[in-house]
């Protein structure tokens, strides 16, 4: 069973629907025992880093997430919250990854707006998460903050600067883009996560 962590950020329903489409059962829950006992855990999210971290701390979900031993996948804000610190609301985050989360610098090109909304390429993979995925595939992404490149970077995207499209450390995985909204490519990435043993 896959547990999708329920919290006040974003549209967790979409992730559940995406898992359904690849034939995977999941529950949306904030129950500690259910999350701890799940085979896989997905930590999604769209919203504000500060409000989301506060919500997690109030429910002690912050301590739970860092203590998990099964494969965990953060999505979008989930990735950012798994980093050490976010410039969004000057927020101390979970610290699973050492990478810093920053606001995109101003672009010299007028067509590079913030937030980045739409389909961009991922490349330079270093993880089983991207098994069978061609270099430069397009994924759907919506964000104003990004995780810098670092030791845990397992895929890169270029927007104003190159940043971490995905991170991995031990049993923790995270993607900045939305695999649940990224067509067949996204579905393959979710399948890859589900089959990690």
């Amino acid at each position, binding site marked *: 069973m896959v547990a999708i962590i329920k919290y006040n950020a974003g549209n967790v329903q979409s992730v559940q629907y995406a898992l359904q489409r690849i034939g995977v059962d999941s529950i949306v829950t904030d129950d500690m025992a259910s999350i701890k006992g799940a085979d896989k855990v997905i930590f999604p999210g769209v919203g504000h880093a500060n409000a989301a971290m506060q919500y997690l701390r109030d429910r002690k979900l912050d301590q739970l997430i860092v203590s998990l031993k099964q494969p965990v996948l953060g999505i979008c804000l989930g990735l950012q919250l798994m980093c050490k610190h976010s410039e969004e609301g000057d927020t101390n985050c979970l610290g699973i990854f050492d990478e810093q989360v920053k606001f995109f610098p101003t672009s010299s090109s007028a067509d590079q707006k913030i937030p980045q909304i739409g389909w961009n390429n991922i490349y330079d993979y270093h993880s089983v998460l991207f098994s069978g995925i061609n270099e430069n595939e397009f994924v759907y992404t919506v964000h104003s903050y990004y995780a810098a490149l670092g030791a845990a970077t397992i895929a890169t995207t270029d927007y104003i600067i190159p940043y971490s499209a995905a991170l991995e450390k031990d049993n923790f995985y995270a993607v900045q883009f939305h695999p649940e909204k990224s*067509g067949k490519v996204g579905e393959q990435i979710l399948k890859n996560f589900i089959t990690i043993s």
Partner: protein
Amino acid sequence: MSLENFNKSNHPSFINSSNGSGRGLSKRIIPCLDIKDGRTVKGINFESIRDAGDPVELAILYSENGADELVFLDITATIEKRKTLVELVKRIAANINIPFTVGGGISSVEDVALLLQNGADKVSVNTAAFKNPSLLKQLSNEFGSQCVVLAIDSKKEADSEWYVYLNGGRTKTDTKTIEWAKEAVALGAGEILLTSMNNDGTKNGFALDITAELSSSLPVPVIASGGAGSMEHFKDVFDIGKADAALAASIFHYKEIEILALKKYLSVNNIRVRLK
């Protein structure tokens, strides 16, 4: 290489970033479906689908044929029948794997919460936001700017200025489109969906002047709508109109232009699009 000293002009991935090759954010092609009582309104012309009126079947077909996003515009008249919209949103979210926006008659935080909870990625607001601009602030605070699309129906008058129209284009205002768009973005709109009433339905091309004006003066993406009749019109709205995305309805529904063929054309013409 130190990221602090990263010089993007020397990085190979940026040299091609503004044209059809290389890497970077792509321009979006967005089909729009008009919905009434849970069914698509305009006739459609696809042999491969069983039920031409079912928005979900059409949505799946578009998503499999290269659409980057979908917009569902609900034109259901009565509040009672609008409840069918929530059921429809649920079915769309369960069945398609690309982002979608829902618009039409949305006037409160509660309306939006219901649509987002049931799987919509974004909502578009129009008349209600103009009459009550604080709605934009409430929505962006509650759900984030990324899911708040402001739709503007705009018309160029005899004085050559573009004005905002309300109620599906039936009510003129004295507010200039550029002024309302700037205010809306300051309040929290994350994208602007601009429809030119002068161009809509003409198939003579998008309104390039107002699209370019909005796109170059706003920090958020602009979706151009109204007037698409040929592939060249899409090229122009990206090249000259500086649009971030282009929306069309009938030319896609009646298969006058197929999305994959359009994207191949744009790619050949050095516009970055997502090709499979």
